[in-house]
């Protein structure tokens, strides 16, 4: 591991640092906007705490590869390269949003980034990943599908069917579980007979990529890189990254206000904040990098501010948008 990390250059790591703090700023801003009712609606699931998983995993891909995830998708979208303006506009339900304001927080997507979107039915996107990977094999393309999965989602029928099918067909998928220990309020050990989720690979005769530290972007990057190589050549891999939700299930989750046990747990995990972990590494590796980190941090904050401005000034969708895209090439009421 140590030797591998040495090969990562300063710029790359600084870029990851930037991405991680960008996501953190973005999520903090979303939370703020939600409290101010400038972002509305029932669902807003923040990626804070998970950043190293998304950034590290996506760093292991090229733009020819494919990405798909669940509703906790802001961080994935940004790490994949979605313009924060466009992401923020989607949060606010604006025409300039990535899905034209019709998808919202849970349904970011960007076709030209091969980012196939965030999905809100738990497990529902898993067979989609299988299908996209089928297309890759069918067309003999040199690419992989990276599919993010919540720990809770691994107990759903979709998980079983989608992973098994990918194994039977030797498809190039990296199945990456973001195990943040809980789905809404249910702990992994209360929802999974097998709490070491990567072991579920055995049920599909699938390569078990193991359990990795999801707070360490470098470890995630290497593990996913290895998995990508394997998946392209041989077939699916199941990986499990241990991570933690810093902000509750969604913005309306107030568990941290009432549950002392959760607050204590959170404190422990905050010591392993992906920002801190990467910062320590950088500071240790590269002398005098602090000012650079500061700069990236400010840059990210400014980008988020600009995104909010852009989003707020953007127009809302209209009736024409409401009735568009129900079908391809046909009016909704035809």
């Amino acid at each position, binding site marked *: 591991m140590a030797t591998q990390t040495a090969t990562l250059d300063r710029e790359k790591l600084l870029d990851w640092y930037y991405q991680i703090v960008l996501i953190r700023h973005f999520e903090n801003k979303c939370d703020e906007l939600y409290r101010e009712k400038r972002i*509305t*609606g*029932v*669902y807003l699931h923040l990626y804070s705490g998970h950043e190293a998983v998304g950034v590290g995993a996506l760093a292991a891909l090229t733009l020819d590869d494919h990405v798909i995830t669940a509703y906790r998708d802001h961080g994935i979208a940004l790490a994949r390269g979605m313009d924060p303006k466009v992401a923020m506009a*989607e949060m606010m*339900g*604006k025409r300039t949003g990535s*899905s034209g*304001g*019709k*998808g*919202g*927080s*849970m*349904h970011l997507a960007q076709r030209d980034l091969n980012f196939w979107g965030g*999905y*809100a*039915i*738990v*497990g*529902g996107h898993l067979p989609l990943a299988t299908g996209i990977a089928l297309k890759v094999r069918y067309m003999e393309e040199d690419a992989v599908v990276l599919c993010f999965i919540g720990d*809770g*989602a691994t*107990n*759903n*029928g979709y998980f079983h069917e989608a992973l098994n099918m990918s194994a039977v067909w030797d498809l190039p998928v990296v199945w990456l579980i973001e195990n943040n220990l809980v*789905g*809404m*309020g*249910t702990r992994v050990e*209360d*929802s*999974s007979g097998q709490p070491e989720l990567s072991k579920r690979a055995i049920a599909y005769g699938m390569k078990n990529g193991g359990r990795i530290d999801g707070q360490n972007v470098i470890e995630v990057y290497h593990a996913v890189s290895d998995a990508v190589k394997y998946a392209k050549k041989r077939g699916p891999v199941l990986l499990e990254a241990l991570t933690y939700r810093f902000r509750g299930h969604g913005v309306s989750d107030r568990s941290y206000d009432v549950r002392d046990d959760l607050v204590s747990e959170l404190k422990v995990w905050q010591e392993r904040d992906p920002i801190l972990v990467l910062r320590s590494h950088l500071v240790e590796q590269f002398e005098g990098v602090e000012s650079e980190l500061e700069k990236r941090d400010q840059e990210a904050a400014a980008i988020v501010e600009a995104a909010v401005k852009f989003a707020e000034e953007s127009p*809302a*969708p*209209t*009736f024409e*948008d*409401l*009735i568009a895209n*129900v079908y391809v090439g046909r009016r*909704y*009421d035809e």
Partner: protein
Amino acid sequence: MSERNQPMREALRMALREEMSRDERVFVMGLEVGQWQGTHRVTRGLLEEFGARRVRDTPISEMAIAGAAVGAAMAGLRPVAEIMTINFAFLALDAIVNHAAKIHYMFGGQFTVPLVIRAATGWGNQATATHSHTPEPIFAHFPGLFVGCPSNATDAKGMLKAAIRDENPVLFTEFIALYSKPAPVPDDPDFVLPIGKADIKRAGKDVTIVTFGRGVEWSLNAAEALAKDGVQCEVVDMRWLRPLDIATVIASFKKTNRCVVVEECLPMYSFGSEIAAQIQEKAFDYMDAPVKRVSAMDVPLPYAAEIELMALPNTQKVIDAVKEVL
């Protein structure tokens, strides 16, 4: 016995508590019903009161939540399974309509399935396309399953208790938009409303408005407004989509000769379709105008609040429809 103003979620909880106290076989299972205190807070406090044996958190496994509840019901328990929102019941459609609804019949009456599946329903809060269904008619299409949907706290208590006590499987849907709305709820632990009986929420002689669930609110508001113009609407709250109390609809229609159906559902092959079809079948000679339907627009639901609301029925749309049939 007295009654107190309570929000619908409290009325539902009261029903659950009373039935759980009355009958040890009654228990609750579903996502986040226990430790998390219920996604919609209906089951708040039940874990503490009844313990983990009778308030069971489950994995995110809708097929198994519904299916295991069917098994437990066959075997003699009386499960009240919660599907967090009705949208996720699509994953359990087979367990519900091919198992819960058919087992009594298919095995010649050997087994009964005294099961209630509760699910939050409705939309209008930017929950977006996959989380914004009011698909009760889909489930009510299938014989063997009762489908109830209360429009207020009072009915919620009486209907849920009836559902729990009944020997048949019941899909019981609760409009999220109504959870916080209060109404007088009787303390009476035997306050039970009959399954399959509609309720006339407002009497009137000019137009019959047939609706259920959240549609009742829009309809009553519309009736209120129209009354000012001297138009007397009779508002029929179906309460149950199966058994469907069409007799009450027809009786009202024979008096008013005009009808508007109000549903939050999608319009095609839906609740309004059935009501309109039955009226023209059973009261053709009484029709002074076509039955008019007010439904959600025939589109998936978008996120942006502005356009989402355009797609939803509302009081004004009901008023307009009533004026059209007058």
